[in-house]
């Protein structure tokens, strides 16, 4: 488990896989449900 609670998700143009954006979209969706 990471020491400090994760506060944000990151994506790098032409550096991160598309999956990182899927993770961000899921986090936003969950944030809505919560």
């Amino acid at each position, binding site marked *: 488990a990471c020491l400090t609670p994760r506060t944000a*998700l990151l994506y*790098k*143009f032409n550096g991160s896989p598309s999956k990182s954006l899927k993770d961000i979209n899921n986090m936003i969706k969950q*944030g809505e449900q919560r």
Partner: protein
Amino acid sequence: KEVVDRLRYLEAEIEDLELKEKELDQQKLWLQQSIKNVMDDSTNHQYPFKHIKGLCNHGVRDTLLAIQAPCGTQLEVPIPEMGQNGQKKYQINLKSSSGPIHVLLINKE
């Protein structure tokens, strides 16, 4: 004898897997270089905008923002939190270190 045979078999399998992994790493490098060559062909890698609008015509009746930024630009999305007025706040931070970022509002009346 059985355990020794198993050991030999596993060692051979792991050797195969190692070769396979090296081949995949090499192929990934080729492809990344090939994509970079295409992207470096600066005259032609723009994307016809009308097709992004086409996304709107695909029943996407939303507001679309197109963010065009230099490679390496960082996008950060904090975990949504509750604002003072009890409304959820959703944020996007963009940080570039090598050039300006351009944001286009695609389909807002």
